[in-house]
């Protein structure tokens, strides 16, 4: 077991953090918005946190505690998302997707050009404070949040806004507001995950949090199922695990499988692997069977 962990521990850590990114992508999809922006916010958050740590260490002092860094990540991510949401959410659906891709690209350019703070192309080292258990704990807490969210007033609003924004509005739901909250919350999650990712890599360059990660987090959410929070996490695990296990056979083209998988899912299983509808169908069947048994 411990040998297994020695080999695959780091893979799992990346998978869990990817799970957080996928959840932030899922929040967007849940409000009917395809947004890659959380990665841009993650980048901003990671740089701020990394810089704070770097300055401390350079001055020969002890680094801030982990909790502080996580907090900074969430605040920076959330703040950036909130500010930008006012302009971005004015856009129609596909333009919004485009603008958020652009935002990720711009984030990199900014990071490259603010080299006084970010180290430019050279990057900036990030002292690692997290352990696997920290990551798991964070993922657990976030999952519980999503569980509560799902059946809360806000969760219902998100469902309605995603499926039929016009109907939601005529039922009194402020669609723009719901989207803004989801967008900001996704930014908070993105910031959090960004700090974690930077600590895992232990070195932050402008490409650490970039388009590839953005696409893969969307892909994980869709693969696992973007209709309930379990989906993105499962998707992230699969997305990390599958190429890893295929590495011996496929070598460096292992990623091909990820792409093919995504296409297959979109073609054959449009609602992803985990679909709450399916659960409902099962539980209804079971109930009707039970009532039949009682009757007979």
């Amino acid at each position, binding site marked *: 077991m411990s040998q297994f962990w020695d080999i695959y521990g780091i893979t799992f850590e990346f998978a869990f953090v990817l799970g957080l990114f996928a959840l932030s992508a899922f929040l967007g999809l849940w409000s009917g918005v395809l947004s890659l922006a959380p990665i841009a916010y993650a980048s901003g958050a990671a740089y701020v946190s990394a810089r704070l740590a770097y300055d401390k260490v350079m001055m020969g002092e002890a680094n801030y505690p982990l909790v502080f860094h996580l907090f900074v990540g969430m605040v920076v991510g959330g703040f950036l998302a909130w500010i930008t949401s006012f302009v971005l959410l004015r856009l129609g659906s596909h333009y919004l997707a485009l603008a958020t891709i652009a935002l990720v690209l711009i984030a990199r350019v900014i990071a490259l050009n603010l080299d006084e703070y970010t180290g430019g192309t050279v990057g900036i080292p990030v002292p690692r404070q997290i352990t696997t258990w920290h990551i798991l704990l964070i993922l657990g807490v976030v999952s519980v949040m999503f569980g509560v969210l799902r059946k809360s007033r806000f969760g219902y609003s998100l469902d309605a806004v995603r499926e039929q924004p016009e109907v939601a509005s005529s039922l009194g739901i402020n669609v723009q507001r719901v989207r803004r909250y989801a967008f900001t919350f996704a930014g908070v999650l993105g910031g959090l995950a960004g700090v974690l990712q930077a600590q895992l890599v232990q070195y932050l360059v402008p490409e650490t949090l970039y388009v590839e990660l953005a696409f893969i987090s969307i892909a994980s959410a869709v693969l696992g199922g973007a209709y309930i929070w379990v989906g993105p996490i499962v998707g992230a695990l699969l997305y990390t695990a599958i190429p890893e296990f295929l590495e011996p056979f496929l070598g460096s083209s292992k990623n091909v499988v*990820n792409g093919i998988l995504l296409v297959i899912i979109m073609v054959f299983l449009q609602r992803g692997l985990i679909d709450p509808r399916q659960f409902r169908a099962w539980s209804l069947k079971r109930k009707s069977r039970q009532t039949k048994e009682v009757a007979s």
Partner: protein
Amino acid sequence: MGPLLTSQKKRNENLLNLFIQQVLNGLAVGSAYGMFAMSFGLIFATMGILNVAHGTIATFGAIAALTVVENWGFSFFPALLIAILTGAAIGIVTDRLAFQPLRARANTLGYLITSIGVWIVLIALGETALDHQIKTFPPDLLSWPRLVTTNIYLAPGQIWLMIIGPISVVALYLVLTRTPIGTMIRAVGFSDVWSRISGVSSTVVILSTVGISAGLAGIVGYLSSIAFDNVSVPLGEGLLLKGFAAVVVGGFGDVRGAFLGGIIIGVTEVLGAQYVSGDFRDVITFGLLILFLLFRPEGIFGEIKFGAAR
């Protein structure tokens, strides 16, 4: 007084030459962006597919051309043909395998996610084909036409971009507006039910659209890999990003707009890098992109037809 005046004059002349050189560089780069924007925009405007794999298709055009040049000694024009055919073939295959099954139900978002899948596959294959390297065409592939004066230099690759770019706009525009198949392509863009009513097979139309668009991407990939002396996966990704910016600036609705958008992005980028700051080159491009998305999402030239009716 005399020598000072001449050196002043000389300096002005140099500045002017530099400016001309950079405008020409901008036009060459802009032609590449513009052609890519047309091909990328055509698919989006007619079928609602925002294909993030499109840049990689361009890369494959370059890879295929490089292969035939290196292994079988193809010359410039035959290799160009190979680039076109490869682009078109990859476009058609991916369309049949990945996008066609979605056609009955998917919308822009579904297509976008699917294209991310295609993109991941193509990138991995491209990297494998190139062995994770940056390659270049042999320098003797293309030695003409070359523009060399004392102060201005244009490489053959750049010149071909500037020649084929405008030709392809005119050609594509004429095909779309003056030929029956063009009319049908636009009609499918307008509504595929329309094509069903009018009895035109939508498969033929879709395949022609994809073939034209992906073939054009192959051309762009090939020409720009010569002009920038770079055959690599990032080349296509760069085209995708800039071409995408160009499409936003120029508008989806019209190929002329998309091309002009590419020219604007290319020239602004090169001049911005020269006169403002080399580092902020991409900031200018993407700043322009965001400004347009926010204030004029339909592009300079107005109306996007796709998705307007609902």
